[in-house]
């Protein structure tokens, strides 16, 4: 309780307030730009923080992170382009709702779910930092492997009408993930002497290509005019009935997000996909998923915003950044001579309390700025299709180019777009490919690391309790999903097309 009081003191600090408001605005803009990841958005601000006071600098960077994680959902809903990796799950139902002319509601749901997720995550961060930090410590390499497998098990339900096609897509993703440096030996794999491939292919290139580029190609090949349903350029929040319905998927998202955020290396993408999947599993309106379900937006958006808060747990308690974004934040701390880790709370408690206060202001700022900004975004995508397509094309090209100023990245993105276009024609779902790509490295490196630990003894995955528990859950998920498909097949009932929107 004392902590809460000390945090409250900072709420009135105009400096913290300004830094949080500026950070969250900049973050939303950066997150909404395809290709500009939260970490790049933060890195761009870093030079400005050199001369700021430590609290202001940290608040600015952390609020940018919060804003960017939310901002990713805006293009996901409006132009089928996840602005951040973690927003990929939001594309499924968000873009469907947009196509039905309900963009205002979709954006409203993602906004208020994002705010709720942030506030929940922040509460956990403030009150339960210590116990949550011990969760991070319980995860050994075998446990990370099992966590990755659990994430991959979602593929079984995201595969749409054909499990086989889902596996093909997942394998494609896993194959792309093997490009780059071997995680154990350090040798180069499938790089063909190109230094551009040395650090692997960034998931963002594949995501933007497969989702956005392929959508542009599909639209360009559609000659019909005026089929587009326009959404009214205003943001709508759900009524009481819908809000009550969304409470359950939101709590799923908040819980999963909190835990995934705490684990270094797990991150928002796994959290949002897993909460999407769980929200669908426990929903009373399963048939709506993939066809514009509000629950399908609420769950992943709550999750990835909760991650943005609890990702600070390992950073503040151990000084360990779990993602690129928190690594930039670590840089922000170091620049000001602060060393995150066990001593931070005793030595610079004031900065930590200021940070908490700033994050609270950022969460509220998210709501205010979202309400002001979103109608303009809807207006923008209501422009005639040729203009819009040209604008999106320019936007994604410049976004991808700006990551490393690399034409090679652009080529990869365009190639992924072409592959995505043909995948859509063959009705092969994208989501398993994206999941395979995001999780491939985690699964492979943890698997091989575990084997180095155990001296090539596979039993390590069953003697580690966390690993065993996660593997059992993953097995139950897959068995349940496959069993249901088999049952539907025997009874000659068509399987539900879960991920229609992803095809």
């Amino acid at each position, binding site marked *: 309780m004392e902590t809460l009081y000390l945090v409250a003191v900072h709420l009135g600090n105009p400096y913290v307030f300004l830094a949080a408001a500026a950070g969250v605005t900049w973050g939303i803009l950066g997150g909404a730009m395809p290709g500009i990841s939260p970490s790049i958005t933060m890195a761009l601000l870093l030079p400005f923080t050199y001369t700021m006071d430590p609290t202001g600098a940290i608040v600015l960077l952390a609020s940018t992170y919060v804003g960017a994680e939310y901002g990713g959902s805006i293009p996901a809903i409006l132009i089928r382009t996840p602005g951040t990796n973690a927003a990929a799950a939001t594309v499924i139902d968000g873009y469907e709702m947009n196509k039905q002319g309900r963009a205002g509601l979709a954006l409203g749901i993602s906004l208020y779910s994002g705010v709720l997720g942030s506030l929940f995550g922040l509460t956990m961060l403030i009150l339960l930092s210590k116990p949550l930090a011990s969760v991070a410590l319980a995860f050994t390499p075998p446990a990370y492997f099992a966590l990755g497998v659990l994430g991959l098990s979602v593929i079984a339900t995201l595969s749409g009408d054909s499990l086989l096609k889902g596996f093909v897509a997942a394998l494609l993703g896993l194959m792309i993930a093997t490009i780059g440096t071997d995680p154990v030996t350090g040798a180069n794999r499938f790089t063909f002497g190109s230094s551009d491939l040395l650090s692997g292919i960034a998931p963002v290139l594949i995501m933007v290509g497969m989702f956005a580029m392929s959508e542009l190609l599909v639209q360009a090949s559609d000659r019909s005019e005026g089929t587009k349903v326009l959404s009214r350029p205003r943001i709508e929040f759900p009524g009481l009935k819908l809000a009550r319905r969304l409470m359950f998927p939101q709590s799923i998202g908040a819980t999963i997000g909190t835990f995934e955020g705490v684990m270094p290396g797990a991150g928002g993408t796994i959290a949002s996909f897993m909460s999407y999947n769980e929200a669908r599993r426990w929903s009373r309106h399963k048939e709506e998923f993939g066809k514009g379900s509000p629950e399908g937006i609420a769950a992943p958006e709550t999750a990835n915003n909760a991650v943005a808060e609890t990702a600070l747990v390992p950073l503040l308690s*151990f000084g360990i950044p779990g993602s690129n974004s928190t690594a930039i934040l670590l840089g922000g701390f170091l620049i000001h001579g602060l060393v995150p880790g066990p001593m931070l709370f005793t030595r610079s408690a004031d900065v930590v309390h200021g940070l908490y206060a700033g994050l609270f202001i950022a969460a509220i700022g998210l709501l205010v700025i979202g309400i002001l900004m979103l109608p303009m975004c809807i207006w923008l995508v209501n422009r005639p299709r040729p203009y819009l397509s040209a604008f999106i094309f320019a936007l994604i090209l410049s976004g991808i180019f700006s990551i490393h100023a690399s034409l090679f990245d652009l080529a990869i993105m365009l190639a992924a777009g072409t592959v995505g276009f043909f995948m859509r024609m063959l009705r092969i779902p994208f989501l398993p490919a994206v999941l395979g790509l995001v999780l491939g490295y985690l699964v492979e490196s943890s698997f091989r690391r575990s084997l180095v630990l155990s001296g090539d003894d596979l039993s390590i995955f069953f003697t580690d309790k966390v690993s065993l528990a996660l593997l059992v859950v993953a097995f139950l998920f897959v068995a349940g999903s496959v069993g249901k498909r088999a049952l539907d097949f025997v009874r000659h009932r068509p399987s539900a097309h879960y991920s229609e929107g992803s095809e």
Partner: protein
Amino acid sequence: MLFRQIFTAALASAAMSVFPAIAADYPVDTVTLVTHSSPGGGSDVFLREMSKYLAPELGVNVVVENVRGGSGAKAMADLAQAPADGARFYATTPTFIYTSLLSEPEYKYTDLEPLVNFFIDPEVIYTAAGSKFQTLEDVIKASAESRGRWGAANPASLERQALEQLKASTGVQAGIVTHEGGGDLMINVLNGTLQIGVGEVQEIQSQLEAGEIRLLATFSDARLDNFPDLPTVEELGYGVVVRKFRGIAGPKGLPADVIAAWENAAQAVLASPEYKKTYEANNLRANFMPHAEYGQFIETFANDTESFLRESGVIK
């Protein structure tokens, strides 16, 4: 209008305070230091701090530029093709040797000219405070009885090389687990998955101060000023010394006056009492090497690394 004037004035005064009047003897006005590290990364923060002290000594503006991609391959290509007029330099760490050897990029470390060295980052061996190991000998003994579990931050890194050398020189059995950075490694040491980890003091400082980890030895050539009781691996009789360097390299064919200016500036920067306080607090060891010595050092370092990578089967 008023705002603009104030802004310009503020900018000018800020520039004045950081960069002094331009001296006549250095051939260019602005020196760019290229790093492959991302903004906020270890090398980036280090360079920005150092450039504050370097600027007045060289009498120029010093700018840090991040040329990322390919673990330094892009930065090396950038430098190798830059004119050797003293305007553009590359901040070297062992990464540029590893990348050159591992990925055979178009431009390698041999296409650059090592200029001067500033620092050595001491590498230390640490274990969790709750572990039963009190000394490095305990770890080696335990690993001789049953297979040890040792950790390094990255697969192609000096830390892994150091552990592989230690393993070879002691002849014990140990799995050397590589990670995706020091953070991952730290977690696995703290939770007891690994017996020991290797890292720079700076990376583990906070845990060290909180008493959550214990240092066992350093791979340095001499004991560390901040930890006078910590034995070196060499004096324990295992004969492994590791020098993680931080220096500057430029394009081939640097003019003699530029080389001389840097040699003087480097020594002056390292001697600056204000900077000394900062870098010693960050556990960096000043280790000035002039141009002639540094070139030799880099060559030896690269040869050692290459034979290690060959022996461990990473490259053919």
